[in-house]
């Protein structure tokens, strides 16, 4: 369903080509873990696959639609409904509380389903054990709590594919396990997961490991 063909990428002002003619295919219902050394291009291929970093050459297709040939409107729709991306760093809008941070990005214009989204977000916060932190501001949360909130934000619109950049790095075992269980549950509901990782627990959970 997500297909990358001949992807090459070199960052501006950098001599090294990070990705060279990379081909990759992600099947529906998979949990694919991407591993590799630091600097091997894990994060870069994730970003290219997520449609947020244009490759120098090659193309990325989601269900036959070339992500980088789409209009801004169509690509935005894909980001909202089809591909959820969890960045490596926990990034929030510092002026909003956690619940608003999770829901607000999806609220522009059409707010009809607003109430439902808030309820869904509260429920997921509860599942991940941070239900009582919904009205805190991002800076009041620990790294693990922030990571969980980021995950909920990416999954809120029930995207087909979730792409996570190092979902468990820097977290204690217990929190890491919670996140993995949550991701696995999500996959079992018929969705697809792609994660870059160094963590053996993630690899163990994955249905396929791709060493880049």
């Amino acid at each position: 369903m997500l297909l990358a063909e001949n992807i090459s990428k070199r960052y501006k002002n950098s001599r090294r080509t990070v990705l060279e003619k990379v081909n990759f295919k992600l099947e529906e219902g998979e949990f694919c873990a991407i591993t590799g050394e630091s600097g091997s291009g894990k994060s870069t291929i994730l970003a290219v696959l997520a449609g947020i970093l244009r490759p120098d050459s090659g193309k990325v297709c989601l269900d036959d639609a070339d992500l980088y040939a789409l209009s801004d409107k169509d690509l935005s729709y894909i980001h909202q409904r089809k591909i959820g991306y969890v960045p490596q760093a926990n990034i929030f809008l510092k002026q909003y509380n956690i619940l608003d941070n999770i829901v607000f990005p999806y609220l522009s214009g059409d707010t009809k389903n607003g109430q439902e989204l808030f309820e869904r977000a509260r429920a997921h916060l509860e599942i991940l054990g941070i239900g009582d932190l919904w009205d805190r501001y991002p800076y009041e949360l620990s790294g693990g709590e922030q990571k969980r909130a980021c995950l909920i934000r990416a999954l809120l619109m029930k995207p087909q594919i979730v792409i996570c950049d190092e979902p468990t790095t820097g977290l204690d075992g217990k929190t890491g396990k919670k996140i993995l269980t949550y991701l696995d549950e999500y996959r079992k509901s018929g969705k697809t997961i792609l994660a870059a990782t160094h963590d053996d627990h993630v690899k163990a959970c994955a249905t396929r490991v791709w060493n880049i």
Partner: protein
Amino acid sequence: MSRKKGNNLFKNIASHGFYNACLLATILILSAILFASAVIRQSLNTGMKNMKKRLGSDIMLVPKGAKENAEDLLLEGSRNTFYFDASIYEKVSSIDGIAESTSQIFLKSLSADCCSSEVEIVFFDPETDFVVGPWIEEEYAKTLSGNQVIVGNSITVENGVIRLFGQEYPVVAKMAKTGTALDSSVYFSKETMPDVIAHAEEKGSFLTKEQLEGGIISSVFINLRSEAKLEKVLETVHQTIGDIFDVVYPKQLNTSLAGNLSRITGIVDIITYALGGLLIVLLLLFHSLIMKGRKQEVALLRILGRTRKTLIRELLSEVGVISLSGTIIGCLFSMLIVFPFGTYIGMQFQMPYLGPSFAKALLTMLLIVLFVSAISLLTSILFILHVTHVEPYLALRREE
């Protein structure tokens, strides 16, 4: 949990509070300066236009040594007194080449140097007058007779009369506003001079010996026949009354005043342009800093599915709110200074100064609000376009 759009807008603005406050201050100052300079220019121009009306004679004869005082009186309405003998008028008026002539007598403030209802008093001759007439704005009666008076624009008339030295004088006309001290003058007919002076003396006003004695005039206004030569007429005047007079050329004063005006407005313009340029540079700086600070936020929202168009609209409306409130507050603040201090500003320029009407001031404000908001939005659009077109992943990484 408030989910109102407006609420989010203010939250977003507040989250970059410092730079947005700087932006607001810059816009506020820019608008205040623009408004003040626009109003000052308007006021000086209106004052100038009005001035032409009252410099209505070719030449004006005044006692020797009083030339500067007389010019000040014409231009700024400053209170000066200078006299020569009344018989001079008779001698001069019959000189060949003179089309019309009239005389006036000025009295400096009649009592102490400041008093609640203090006025400048001018005696003129309604029979021969061609100087006072053209400035009349509003007529109450057709003729001036007996103890009737014409008043300057800022004199308060109650029930058609004014009270002076315990007497009531019916007002027949009001002069147009000049923006100078002449607005607080009262114009009496020459015949009433002895009476007025007697009443003033009764009420304890300080009068000079010559004022008490009478038989004096301050100036003779002369219009020449079109074919008459100025030098020739002046030579005859000189021969008739001797070397006891100076000549003032009101129409030339007008030209020199216009020169002053363009010099002052030139300076006002230079200051406005220089500060305006500086402030536009500051606007660019603050917009760039604000958008730089929002890069990550914008990238995040794009990754989560916000379209570029929506983001541009949201960012522009934030800039719009700041700009609009900044420029309105700036104009109001400027209004608060420029209007109450109008007379003082005019005195500092030593120029006739007539503030604009309320409607005109509002129109000026509206234009400035539109202009400054447009400038602010235009200077921000470049940065907004940049921040919404950066690859989201790169924007996120740079901030990591």
